[in-house]
């Protein structure tokens, strides 16, 4: 027994595919001049050695290593993240590009002896009792790729430690991920302890069993349905949006 599936399902992903390949689309976005073009291509391809080679050429040509971070590396990374946002490339491409870009940043910092100013600082953690951290790893990588400094507290982080880190680091945003229903209850405790301390910062929560209905129960919580929401939320904060506006933008139900 077999069936013609054409009346049973629609492969929307095939139907929506662009005529151009991701590589062709990326190539149209690279800077015209060298070695910036090659460096951006190497970031898109996730080729760390090629990124370093391109940076060496640029520095030999007189470029300021620290300026290269914003002028070339971040430009190359943005091509990758923009194509990811458009649904053209997959997450592993972004992760590999981010690895290549971060290695490039470290190289530039070593060469220049200084560090560039990040767009902002964000503290990330996995809820107390929860050791599932792949979601947090993705969130942290996407934030770093977008130019933010990430203080990664890791997984199974006690509430006390989250509060202490927020007080010490004074971040623009806190993120929390959890897989299980009973571990995500720690988010509410974090919220209450922050408010007790008079700290009002956006607390982006997501992952596994976490849903918007739970997150809206506490004042600072903003629900992030996708890991890719994290840098968008950080950008929204930078543009001046407050908690209410963040909830309006990111809460979907």
């Amino acid at each position, binding site marked *: 027994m077999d069936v*013609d599936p054409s009346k*049973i399902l629609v492969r929307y992903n*095939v139907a929506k595919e662009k005529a151009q390949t991701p590589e062709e689309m990326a190539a149209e976005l690279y800077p015209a001049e060298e070695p910036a073009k090659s460096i951006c291509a190497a970031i898109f391809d996730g080729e760390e050695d090629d990124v370093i080679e391109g940076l060496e050429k640029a520095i030999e040509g007189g470029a300021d290593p620290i300026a290269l971070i914003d002028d070339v590396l971040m430009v190359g990374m943005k091509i990758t993240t923009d194509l990811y946002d458009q649904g053209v490339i997959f997450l592993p491409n972004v992760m590999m590009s981010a690895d290549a870009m971060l290695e490039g940043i470290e190289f530039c910092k070593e060469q220049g002896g200084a560090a560039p100013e990040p767009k902002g600082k964000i503290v990330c953690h996995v809820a107390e009792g*929860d050791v599932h951290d*792949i979601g947090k*790893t993705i969130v942290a990588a996407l934030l770093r790729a977008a130019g933010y400094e990430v203080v990664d507290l890791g997984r199974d982080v006690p509430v006390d430690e989250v509060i202490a880190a927020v007080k010490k680091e004074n971040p623009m945003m806190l993120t929390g991920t959890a897989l299980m229903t009973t571990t995500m209850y720690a988010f509410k405790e974090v919220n209450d302890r922050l408010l007790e301390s008079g700290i009002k910062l956006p607390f982006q929560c997501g992952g596994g069993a976490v849903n918007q209905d739970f997150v809206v129960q506490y004042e600072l919580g903003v629900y992030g349905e996708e890991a890719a929401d994290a840098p968008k939320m950080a950008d929204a904060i930078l543009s001046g949006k407050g908690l209410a506006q963040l909830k309006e933008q990111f809460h979907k139900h």
Partner: protein
Amino acid sequence: MVKRYTSLAYKAADDMIFGKSVYPVKAELGLEVGAGYVTAEVNYAPRPEAGVSKEKLVSEYRRLTTDIMARAVQIGFPGVALETEHVEQMTNNPDRGGEVAHVQKTIMEEYHEEYGIKSALRHTPGDIRENRDLLALIGDKYDKLMESFEQVADNGADFLSIETMGGKEILDYSILRNDIPGLVYAIGCLGSIDMTMIWSDIRKIADKKGRIAAGDTDCAQANTAMFIAGGLLDKNLAHTIAIIARAISAPRTLAGYEAGAQGPGKDCGYENTIVKAITGCPITQEGKTSTCAHADVMGNLVMQCCDLWSNESVEYHAEFGGTSVQCWSESLNYDAAMLNVATETGNAKMLRDILVLSDKYRDPQGYVLAYDNAYKVAESIAKDGDDLYLRAKNAAISCVDILNAADSSKLVMSKFEINALNNAKDALSAMTDEADTFMSDSLEKYKAEVAVFRPDDNYKF
């Protein structure tokens, strides 16, 4: 030294069917799994605030267990299985898991006595063998985990299960980098080594307490891949990579049976059809009735060879139709009734094939897991069943070959999926046939690249 499977329990794929397995298992309160009928297995999670104390947790499970049993009686279902997947508070405090099992089994016994309803209780302690910074598969937490198994077995759990984490430190790294050898190493090699250890010990506890060592699932790895892959428009992972991870998970899950598990396999083990072909042991599956927990692209197909039919997990709360566990257990039971009517009327294979064909071409994942193709993957595993590396590699190659041989007018894949498949094929072709070489090369590579990988402590290299 465990005995590895080198042959299949079924002579032909067509012999595989829902409700029937070669080696059924029987629970204390009369429920037989794989003995010719399908039964609902209801799975649930407590509300977030229930975790704050032992009393609240036990009360939550008392109420939801009563709800499920009452609904089965209200609607007239002959049997039901319950699965309690531990929240971390229960496994880390084994007396809490034990108390919950005791309360649940007591309620089930009361319903068995009063109404004759057959039931079985599965407890699934959480894999707590992780420190904050790294996997610690052997040590204090392992001992606590075994204590948890002892407690739930003592207090009435019929089936003992777990979702183990061995290999996850490498999987988390490699799955986000399309690293196929990394998947083989994480799931097929490291995962199987861990499974062989832990299931030997779980079987000892089960035998000592008169319980059944049920089975594992590669939830931490293959399901992570499936969840990241998401739906048709998600761009987080190619679905062709997700199904390669799933194929590799079958020999890993098999290692649990080789070390003493007897089934029913865990619900979220979408690899279970492959495993059933080899072991002949009963399996639980989840699909269209687990949409309360997650979406997938094979909701009907995966029912094809199930012996228990599960909803994966639902938070306990109120719905219009009753509590959530009542609503989902009712849906599960109606599905089971339909399957059992098909069996009673001689139409089981017809229904199985309808279920399969409704999803077989929906996605590469369902295509490979359709029982005819799953059987081919099973054959490739058994062919080199004595070699943990080779059988995992075989599974991946078999998966790629099945997809490449598919009728492209029916299984329509996107360019991304095809590219990922081609890249995977190239990566597999470049891999050695020598297990020792692969293991030593991988050890060196991932020790250098993954800071939390502790092979000496966890896998005894």
